């Protein structure tokens, strides 16, 4: 299936759920859906597009919203499903019932962006330390790393 056929098929299958379908490059398809239809889109991709393989989930801080990109891949194309959640209510449903391999990426999202993944089977932090402040999320744009002041024992200053 060529890229154009894939884009057409996606438009037909998803109907109004597909807010945007773009094909900026060979084998690269960007699909935008509302957060509510993410699970449906993932199920469709898994069952009818041979995209059982989720390569990664990228989070992006866009100020008012967080953008999430689910990178699916089949042998034909790389289909990236984009969705946006508001910063004031950063909730997204877990896609692990559809793609069990997504668990680590969802845990990473929770750590790095402070998103709440509803229905995640394992909500422990993945990469952040146990004593990390709960409201600090390093990949948010307003989070800046402050190096603690160096204290030299016995130093005159």
């Amino acid at each position, binding site marked *: 299936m060529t890229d154009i056929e894939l884009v057409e098929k996606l438009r037909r299958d998803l109907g109004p759920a597909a807010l945007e379908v773009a094909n*900026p*490059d060979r*084998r*690269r398809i*960007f699909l935008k859906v509302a957060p509510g239809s993410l699970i449906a889109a993932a199920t469709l991709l898994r069952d009818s597009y041979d995209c*059982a*393989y*989720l*390569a*990664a989930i*990228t*989070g*992006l801080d866009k100020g008012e919203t967080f953008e999430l*990109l689910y*990178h699916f*891949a089949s*042998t*034909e194309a*790389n289909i*990236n499903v984009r969705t946006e959640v508001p910063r004031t209510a950063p909730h997204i449903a877990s896609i692990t019932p559809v*793609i*069990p*391999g*997504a*668990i*680590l*990426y969802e845990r990473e999202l929770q750590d790095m962006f402070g998103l709440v993944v509803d229905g995640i089977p394992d909500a422990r*932090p*993945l*990469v*952040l*330390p*146990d*004593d*990390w402040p709960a409201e600090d999320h*390093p*990949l948010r744009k307003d989070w800046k*790393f402050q190096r603690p002041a160096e204290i030299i024992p016995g130093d005159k200053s």
Partner: protein
Amino acid sequence: MKFQIPIGPQHPALKEPISLRMTVEGEVIRDADIRLGYNHRGVEKLAEEKNWIQNIYLTERICGICSHSHSTCFVQGVEKLMEIVPPRRGLYLRYLVSELERVHSHLLWLGVAGHEAGFDSFFMYTWRDREIVMDLLEMISGNRVHYAMNCLGGVRRDIDEAQKAKILEGVAVLRKRSEYYFRIGASEPSFVARIAGVGMLTKELAVKLCAVGPTARASSITRDVRKEDPCAVYDELDFAVGTADSCDVLGRVVVRVQELLESYKLIEQMIHKLPDGDIAVKAPRKAKAGEVVSRYEAPRGENLHYIKSNGTDKPERLKVRAPTLANYPATVEMLRNGFIADIPLIFAAIDPCICCAERTVTLVNVRSGEETIVPLSDLRRQAAERRTNVPAKRNAVWPF
């Protein structure tokens, strides 16, 4: 009766910091939990403060073994954003180094697999031969580990006729040596028996858990980015994707052996087909606003970089997904119902690269499991169960 055994973050069987917590019943692992974060360096956050050129060298330092993989994945994405096309010669040289790197990584892994299986002479032989490819890489790039070959728009160093001859010579020696080692398997049944039937991962599970690279290919999934998403030169070259259907550590050895032979083929083709011309074009300082998903087949599996640009000389976002992270959920399944003695072997079989998978600094307490008194009847039951759990493949054969 269940115990919890913590392994790591520092442990002689693991070369890098990771914590595995095993729930065991006798010798049999019932559940495994992987704890990450000991080596997280915040590369993604740092990348947002560096410009495009600096980021090439930053991404190269994500990993020590597959350093070229990350930088190649990054530059091929940024080149798309900047709308520049590197010259053919530059591309051939870039992917020539990629294949040499794959050879060095797989030879390293074969040695580690031999070592974990208790076959140390195999380890010494493969690592001796790995020096040949390390010397070639040093000759091409001036470095053994961080080659710094990539620049935006091509590569930084050219090779001459004498170097071409040396590479061909080195590959011929490596092929001969590799073929000899692969015959060793047939005359060393204890090695094959040790790795056959260990760390089973069925195809269904591998698909469900999104495994990548040789781990997936050993469970008969033919997923290779070089074939399905051919970047630059791979669609002009002849090579096959190595797969195995035994779904165990033996299969993972077989896949890597096949990939080694395919890489030798690719290197020879690249040298023979090497076009004339420039090796690089000049790249602009800024990239246009846009986004790109860059995929690359690293020695350990698919490497994915998502790069978003906002029109300045710095990326808005760089997302790195290293292959090892994708293979962790599958590793837990591989460990389940295996033996404690197989942990290093199974874990080594995904060729874990912790520094790749993690990019902050953490300190975590690892609590040990509680001890309990085990009644004799339980021990007997365990002993009986163990026999039924022994890998079924008693008469495994070396496939070469």
